[in-house]
Structures are given as C-alpha cells and as structure tokens.
C-alpha cells in the first residue's frame, strides 16, 4: 500500500468486480481509517450496512457530514474515532446515536476530531494532491481551533499572512457510491459530487458501489466526473445502494426515512431492534 506520502510511487489499482460482501471483507479491516463519502447525494449506505454486518471494530470514521450512515455505524459500536465537520440529520435535527456516543460514551467512548467544512474539504484535497497539509483562510476567531489540536497555522512566505493549516486526510479506505461503471471498471458520477473524487484519490484503497455496470458509459459531457479503473480496487453492483439518500437519474432522496430516523434512533433499544430487523435480517 504505497503512497506518495511514504516516499514511493503510488500503486496503480485494478478495479475488480466483486460482491459487496467480498469487497468489504477484502478492503476493510478492524482499526482502519475509513472515509465513506457522498455529500447528501450518493451516500454509500449499503456498504456501511455490510461493514456493520461484518462486525468491523475500532474504525476511525471520516466524513464531512456523518449523516444517518455513521449514526448507524456509531450506534453499532464500529467506531472509536470520528473525523467530521457537521453532525446533524439534515433539515431534521440531531443524530441521536452520535450524540449518545459523545455525551454518554454509548455504546463505547468516541474520540472526535472536529473541523469546519472548508477545512475538511481542504484536508481531502491535500490528501489527493499528495501534500502534507491543507491550507485555508479559516477558523479565524473560532473556538474550534482550540478544541482540535490538529488545527494549526502557517505563515505565507510571500506576504506574511497567517493561514490555517490542517493535516491531509489519507484514509486507509475510501468507499463511495456512483451511478455506473463500464466493463473496464471506469466509474461515472454525476450530480452533486461532493468530495468523493478527492477521497478516492487520497485513500490507500478504494471501493465503489454502483447502480449498474454498462457496456459503455454513454453520452456525457467532456467534463463529466469519471474515475478511471486504475484508481479503484473493487467495484460492487448494488442497485439502490445509496438509499435512503439518492442517485440522480435513478431514484430520489427518501426524505421520509430521514424524518422517521429521528424517532427510531432516539431510543437505544428501538435503534437496535431496527438494525436487527433491517440490516441483520433478524425478525425475532
């Protein structure tokens, strides 16, 4: 697993099509740092659910907006650390499993490394660009800079201006969901593309779930977001793999599921029962 930060040439990847179960088993290990990205759109829920089913532990979960996807993983005890910039249920309210972990250490203590969106986007960008840190005009006057020891500053060598610096994000594994891949393993994403490209390029290993595999990616803009097969390790076909978020051109966001999650996740026992019923296939 070489990368430029380790002083060696990057390893090219060879996208292998496999089942989601095989892909997670091959790429995600206990103790890994893991970025499941997708900014509201194309959130890789199915992959997260598979990680829960495989019982991965002690993960460092990285994600700008933990959303329901990490609320579930945190509540099921997969995480020991969370790197994030906004931890709410969008438009609805709190993420109750995240809150319970931070406020009451349930089901286990959760270390948090907290950023702003601008800084976290910079940190992914730096990871993708092979830089040791990301730099921004940020955090000025904010207490976040004293709450997170990883927020430092650098001085511009030309103007003397002081700028915020955050360490590059280099997850062990990036997991994203995309609309489709072709038979060679090239992946097309469209719509709100968030930080997925940066996460995949920054990570040491990358897994992509897709709605479908097609013979040809089809008519598209010359500037469409396509990730070549040689930046991806594994591709799994998972139709609906972003639900209850959405995949533009395939299905819409299930806003109702986000609203009812507030009630389901508020109570520990109800949350666990929901996971057992919906993720673990246990009807007892």
């Amino acid at each position, binding site marked *: 697993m070489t990368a430029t930060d380790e002083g060696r040439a990057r390893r090219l990847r060879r996208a292998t099509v496999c089942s989601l179960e095989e892909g997670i088993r091959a790429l995600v290990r206990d103790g890994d740092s893991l970025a499941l990205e997708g900014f509201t759109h194309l959130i890789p829920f199915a992959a997260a659910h598979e990680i829960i089913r495989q019982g991965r532990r002690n993960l460092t979960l990285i994600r700008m907006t933990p959303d329901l996807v990490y609320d579930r993983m945190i509540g099921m005890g997969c995480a020991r650390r969370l790197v994030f910039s906004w931890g709410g249920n969008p438009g609805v309210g709190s993420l109750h499993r995240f809150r319970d972990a931070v406020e009451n250490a349930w089901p286990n203590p959760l270390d948090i490394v907290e950023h702003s969106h601008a800084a976290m986007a910079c940190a992914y960008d730096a990871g993708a660009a092979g830089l040791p840190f990301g730099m921004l005009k940020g955090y000025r006057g904010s207490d976040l800079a004293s709450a997170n020891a990883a927020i430092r500053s650098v001085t511009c060598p030309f103007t003397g201006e002081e700028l915020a610096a955050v360490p590059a994000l280099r997850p062990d594994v990036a997991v994203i969901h995309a609309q489709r891949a072709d038979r060679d393993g090239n992946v097309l994403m469209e719509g709100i593309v968030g930080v997925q490209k940066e996460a995949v390029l920054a990570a040491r290993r990358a897994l992509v779930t897709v709605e479908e595999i097609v013979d040809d990616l089809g008519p598209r803009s010359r500037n469409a977001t396509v990730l070549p097969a040689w930046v991806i390790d594994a591709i799994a076909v998972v139709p609906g793999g972003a639900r209850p978020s959405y995949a533009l051109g395939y299905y819409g*966001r299930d806003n109702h599921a986000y609203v009812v999650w507030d009630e389901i996740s508020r109570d520990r026992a109800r949350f666990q029962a929901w996971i057992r019923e919906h993720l673990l296939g246990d009807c007892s």
Partner: protein
Amino acid sequence: MTAARDATPEEMMIAASAAELRDDDVCFVGIGAPSAACNLARLTHAPRITLIYESGTIGARPAALPLSIGDGELCETALTTVSVPEMFRYWLQGGWITVGFLGGAQVDQFANLNTTVIGEYATPRTRLPGGGGAPEIAAHCHRTLIVMKHDRRALVRRVDFVTTFGHGAGGDHRKRLGLSTDGPTRVITDLCVMEPEPERGELWVTELHAGVAIAAVRQRTGWEVRAAPHMREASPPSAHVLDSLRQLRARSGAALPGVQL
C-alpha cells in the same frame, strides 16, 4: 391587503429576512428559515438572485423547499454544480458570495454563533451538529445575516462556544483578525431586527415587527438589550409576500407530509 395580525411571528421573521436580499445578491443558503427566506425573495422581489447551497449547487431554483442542502431538485434546477472543495475554495473563500445566511442554537450580544455544544466542549450537556460551513461563510461572504427564533436560551450574553466568529468582543475585533468582510450585519428574529451599534458592535434593536413591543424583546433576550434611537416598527408583510410564502410552504409540505419547511 393582508393585515399584520394575519402573519405569524415566524412568517414576519421570514419576510423580514427576505426583504434584506437584493436581485444582484449571490447568496449562500442554509437549511430552514434561511432557505425559506431566500426562496421567498426569489419568488417575489428578487427573481434574479443567485442561490448557492453548500452541496455545490450554484443558481438553484427549487419549486419546493428542500429538506437538505443536497436535495435532488437543487442540482436539477441549478445553473451548474461544483465539487465541495471547489465550492469552499474558489467561490466562498475566493470572495464571490455577497450574503451568507446562518442560523444557530445560540447567538450572543456581538453576533458570535454557537452550533457546537451547550456546556463544556469535552463534556457537553448537549452536543449540537457543529460548524459545517458557517465559520468560513461568516468570514468570507461580504455580509452575513443571522435568522433565529427569539428566546432567552438562544440570545445569550456569551455563547458557550464560539463556533462562528461574528464581531468577537466588539470594536475592531474582526479587523484585528484580518477579516475584511462586514460579518453579521443583521440578526433577524420572530420579534425584531437587531444590528451591531456603530461604536462597540453590540447588537441593538433597530426594527420591531408589526405589533411587537420592545418590552417583549427585552424579556426574551439574555442581555440588557438596548433600542436604537432610530428604532421603528416595521410594516407587516404585504399580502403578496405572505401568499407567496404560504404557497411555497404548501408546495413543500405536499412533498413531505408532517414536516414544516
């Protein structure tokens, strides 16, 4: 004409917020009241306003209010959609956005916002969602508007945690930190509009919504809030504005039963 008594305090808050926006504004929109206000402005007096959601959608024109900053309709109606790093680096930090529209759990007398914790950071009584885009929105947008319900627990003397720097300790604090933008220029609540007074930057009341008494504002504010000498009572929202807001929300409610957007 729809009279003031027909508009709820919350509707007056949204209408007063919308009134702050101009046709040539490029506006960074948060979810909730800011989104309602920005879209109300677009549907009434500012049809050419550019609405930007932090998910990367530039020039979104949703027919109904979105639940999240990344709903599909925002992307489908946008002029263009960019990545999140590009959004924050080129468009926001690059200085192209004229208005940032924020809410928060707590705002203090110098318009600093807390969306992080109630209590101590390491051992919070209540863990809130966090900063998201807000710290840099308030730093880089030419001006910032804050909209929130008026409540003693929300409008406090000092915030428990400065997530988003407003005017700091007042005076020239922004300048000393190298911030060249105006920062929060208005705090709009369901009772009134507050602005930083020119000397120390402490928020004072410059406008009361129709039918609201200053005593009610004082009672629900966590510091000894002053009335500006030029404080006035606003006219109620017009029938056109109120109807547009209600129709917008009816369309949004139909998309998602039981949720007020």
